């Protein structure tokens, strides 16, 4: 399957009555975006209003609480549309051409639950830890309709859909723009791949998806990942939004939709494809609460690795605590099939860095890449402007009593920062 991505570099965003991209500036009409979001019945029912803001790199701006981050893309050639099974109909994506509005993102924010988390600082020390401080962000803050307290499932769903719709609408603006740069991505059929790269090791990416419940879910072509068995997906499908995030707990190591669209493991495996390895496919597997599910899913993962005659597998994780068990089960079982693994995780080693980092361990996990210790404490200075609300900072993960100081600075653990210790290896942050 072959996909061409056409990158349209966005250097600035401005509100305007007209929607267009001109000389790297995105002009966007918030009312038009809003109208498009409200075309969805659930959004209509549960979101009272949306407010829009723009946050640019280097500004003294804090966005919180962040729900999701999404990159606007549009399919210009080939079957299907972006976010299949959710925004567009269920049709296999991942081939043809897709335009990407690179250098920007749609960020959804606003309260859902009382301990809502996720901070993006556009400048200062916190900005070093989140990849989203480097983007021009169109921030959409949602305000819930009356009575949402008793309907959190519906409200979460509405905000999730609203963000995807906003990104879809903005992506559409790039449909007829000539990309600044293009790149092609292609994986081959099994036999074809062996014939073309007879001497290269066969490698797949085992992509673990958070799948535990409300605010802990991931959807694949619209299917709740916890209800699916481990399966295979082409890496290019993920570039068209086949996997979306419904996860908004543990800000530092949740994978936003942006992470799924720009999966760094996929990018780096493609970079090595045909040179040092033969990139076969992605295997997606879940992280369920029920222990027999964990057993079954990891059995299935290792079974597929064997069936695909892999030499190596790269495993990434999402979230805190029990996914460590899935990660270690996957790693161990794949290794026992004779397939070599590298796993990517992050650590909770305590504020002093002295505690055991993972909730599970196995000697077969001898090749580990870490996204850093999420318990490490950071002081975030006061920002001139807050998009969203600071009401939740005292309650959010890693924040502790008194974490919002009178002078406006925040003392918290890295956990609170969106994407800080990403377990797909999105960042340079590490620990030893």
């Amino acid at each position: 399957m072959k996909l061409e991505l056409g990158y349209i570099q966005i250097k600035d965003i401005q509100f305007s009555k007209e929607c267009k991209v001109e000389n790297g500036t995105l002009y966007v009409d918030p009312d038009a975006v809003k109208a498009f979001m409200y075309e969805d019945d659930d959004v209509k029912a549960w979101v009272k209003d949306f407010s829009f803001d723009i946050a640019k790199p280097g500004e003294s701006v804090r966005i919180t609480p962040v729900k999701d981050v999404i990159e606007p893309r549009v399919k210009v050639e080939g079957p299907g549309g972006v976010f299949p099974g959710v925004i567009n109909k269920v049709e296999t994506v991942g081939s043809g051409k897709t335009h990407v509005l690179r250098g920007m993102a749609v960020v959804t924010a606003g309260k859902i639950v009382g301990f809502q988390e996720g901070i993006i600082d556009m400048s200062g020390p916190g900005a070093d830890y989140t990849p989203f401080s480097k983007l021009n962000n169109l921030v959409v803050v949602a305000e819930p309709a009356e009575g949402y307290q008793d309907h959190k499932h519906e409200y979460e769903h509405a905000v999730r859909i609203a963000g995807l719709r906003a990104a879809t609408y903005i992506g559409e603006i790039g449909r007829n723009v000539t990309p600044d740069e293009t790149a092609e991505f292609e994986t081959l059929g099994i036999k074809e791949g062996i014939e073309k790269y007879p001497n290269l090791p066969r490698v797949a990416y085992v992509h673990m998806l958070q799948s535990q419940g409300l605010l802990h879910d991931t959807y694949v072509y619209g299917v709740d990942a916890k209800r699916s068995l481990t399966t295979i997906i082409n890496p290019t499908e993920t570039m068209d939004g086949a996997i979306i995030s419904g996860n908004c707990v543990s800000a530092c190591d949740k994978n936003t939709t942006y992470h799924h669209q720009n999966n760094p493991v996929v990018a780096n495996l493609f970079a090595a494809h045909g040179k040092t390895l033969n990139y076969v496919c992605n295997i997606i597997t879940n992280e369920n609460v029920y222990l027999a599910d964990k057993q079954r899913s990891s059995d299935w993962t290792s079974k597929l690795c064997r069936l695909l005659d892999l030499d190596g597998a790269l495993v990434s994780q999402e979230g805190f605590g029990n996914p460590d068990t899935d990660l270690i089960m996957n790693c161990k079982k794949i290794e026992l099939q004779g397939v070599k693994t590298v796993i990517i995780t992050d650590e909770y080693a305590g504020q002093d860095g002295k505690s055991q980092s993972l909730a599970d361990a196995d000697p077969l996990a001898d090749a580990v890449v870490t996204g850093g210790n999420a318990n490490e404490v950071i002081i975030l200075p006061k920002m001139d402007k807050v998009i969203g609300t600071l009401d939740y900072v005292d309650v959010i993960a890693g924040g502790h009593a008194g974490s919002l100081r009178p002078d406006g600075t925040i003392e918290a653990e890295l956990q609170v920062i969106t994407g800080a210790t990403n377990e797909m290896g999105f960042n340079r942050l590490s620990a030893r």
Partner: protein
Amino acid sequence: MSYKVVHYINQFFANIGGEEMAHVAPELREGCVGPGMALNTAWKGEAEIAATIVCGDSYFAEHEADAKKQVLDWVKEQKPDMFIAGPAFNAGRYGYACATIANAVQEELGIPVLTGMYEENPGADLKNKVLIVATANSAAGMRKAAPAMAALALKLMKGEKIGASAEEGYMPNGIRRNFFEKEVGAKRAVDMLVAKLNDKPFTTEYPMPSFDRVAPNKAIKDLSKATIALCTSGGIVPKGNPDHIESSSASHYGEYDITGVDDLTAETYETAHGGYDPVYANADSDRVLPVDVLREMEKEGKIGKLHNLFYTTVGNGTSVANAKGFAAEYAQKLLKAGVHAVIMTST
């Protein structure tokens, strides 16, 4: 004003001689000697070696207590900002001396310390207690080792936050610290996988916690001469739980004298444990802590002696770190008391 440093080196680096001079007793010299020069150079006046202690490696090994005391006395007098030992490279006894003396200075005088040696040097066993810069395996590595040690030492003297082991060059010491790598994680992971696939060396960023096994100690030869101690995680305490050991998440352990006690009875002992049905243990605590039969065996001469103290904790909900700490502490007491073997009972 520059920071004041005391430096510890062995007879070889002080140019006294090799193995044939390893017996020399500690000596205090003013200023820097041998490798200290390289440190001074790297500090460019910000810090300076005020005194150098030279000690023969065999002397340290054979008279550890005396050597330690002498060195500590001198260091105390000097009131330095920092104590540096070595680097010892692959010299085993020198490495052991460096790590041991640095640890003593740090613990007893509260002065920041640093040493350096090759990873496989036996002295590196102390890397979780003392900061040890990893060096090459021979003195040829001095050119790299000295600046690395000097830079890290200066940070310690200034009270600056030190970075991760990979950045600063010290051996991983069980404390995880964040830092920014040159490449993103996914790139590092792909590179690591390619290395692993090609059987090339690679270094994991998170070594799995060692499935820490302690090798079994030698069996005791003659039971009739052995002092046996009883320990339990079943929470057996004198009736009334005088030390108020919590029924779960205990914050301390109990140490009780059983001199003259031949049998634990419902009137005299009970369990403080909250995690199992206490009825049976309360009715007869020998069911958890077999004092009665061990006394019999002591009288019969089957065992030499039942140790007069027993140690008790509650397993229930006590954090692993605490439990470990308790046992490590009372194990030292047992050792000092000359106990030969322990029977540990658990519920």
